[in-house]
């Protein structure tokens, strides 16, 4: 299966998730244990009306989805996964109106647990918006 085929299947997988669809998530790339997923800025996702910045919870949802996709894309082929814990560090506010992209990497996997890290970026890719680390279950 080519990489674009795999990305297309991942996009269909994402679109089957109601919350990912509601946020307008798009699979930009999928590797072996890595995933890049992005979503657009929207007025109804604003968490601070004074600045127009999206709510941290939106970033959490994007991070969680990309981390889960990274686990699912691991070559060992998990049948499903669930979040055990997820920590997010918010380094700065995402710029109003800009797309947010989360890049996740499953950097270690045991028979039962996947360890994942991710960064969230807006158009200023040199200055990450947020970073995440998490542990996920691995169902065989």
């Amino acid at each position, binding site marked *: 299966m080519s990489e674009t085929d795999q990305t297309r299947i991942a996009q269909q997988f994402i679109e*089957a*998730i*109601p*919350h*990912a*669809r*509601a946020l307008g998530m798009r699979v930009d790339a999928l590797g072996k244990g890595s995933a890049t997923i992005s979503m657009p800025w929207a*007025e*109804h*996702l*604003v*968490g*601070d*009306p*004074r600045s127009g910045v*999206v*709510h*941290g*919870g*939106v970033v*959490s*949802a*994007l*991070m*969680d*989805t990309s981390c*889960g996709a990274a686990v699912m894309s691991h070559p060992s082929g998990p049948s*499903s996964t*669930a*979040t*055990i*814990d*997820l*920590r*997010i*560090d*918010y380094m700065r*506010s995402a710029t109003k109106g800009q797309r947010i992209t989360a890049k996740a990497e499953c950097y270690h996997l045991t028979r039962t647990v996947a360890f994942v890290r991710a960064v969230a970026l807006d158009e200023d890719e040199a200055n990450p918006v947020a970073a995440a680390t998490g542990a996920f279950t691995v169902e065989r």
Partner: protein
Amino acid sequence: MMPMDRREPLDRIKSRRDSALAALVSGVPYLTWLGIRFDRRGDELTAILPYDEKLIGNPMLPAIHGGVTAAFLETTAIIELAWAAMWEDMESGRTVPDAAVAAGPPRLPKTIDFTVDYLRSGLPRDAYARARVVRSGRRYASVQVEAWQDNRARLMAQATGHFLMPQG
């Protein structure tokens, strides 16, 4: 500073507190979009997330999206912090509530970090959460949050986070 008036009519006290809370919550579009409401008993808040199909993250089980759970907990923590500050100002008479409502959206604390511990998968049912401000200083605050569904003792998730308090 205006001292508390013991003889102030109860309905006036309640409507003042309720409108202050409503102004705080309705100022955040994302809360409205997720459908989150707050129930108030005195100064104690309980966040309510009514079930909706768009909250689903795993359609096979089905289960609520982990990101929704995180968002629900983070929101509960932020509103609790903002509400606690508002309550103090309101009860001590530092702010006239109507003026506070007219002043526009209140300044909200900013999340520094947030860690969610997923204990049970979220069922396609309403969820509830309560936050406890563990420490609130002039600059930083530490908050602990718990969320549950049918049974208060069986937590769906818990979280702890650090926040930067609004200045000035």
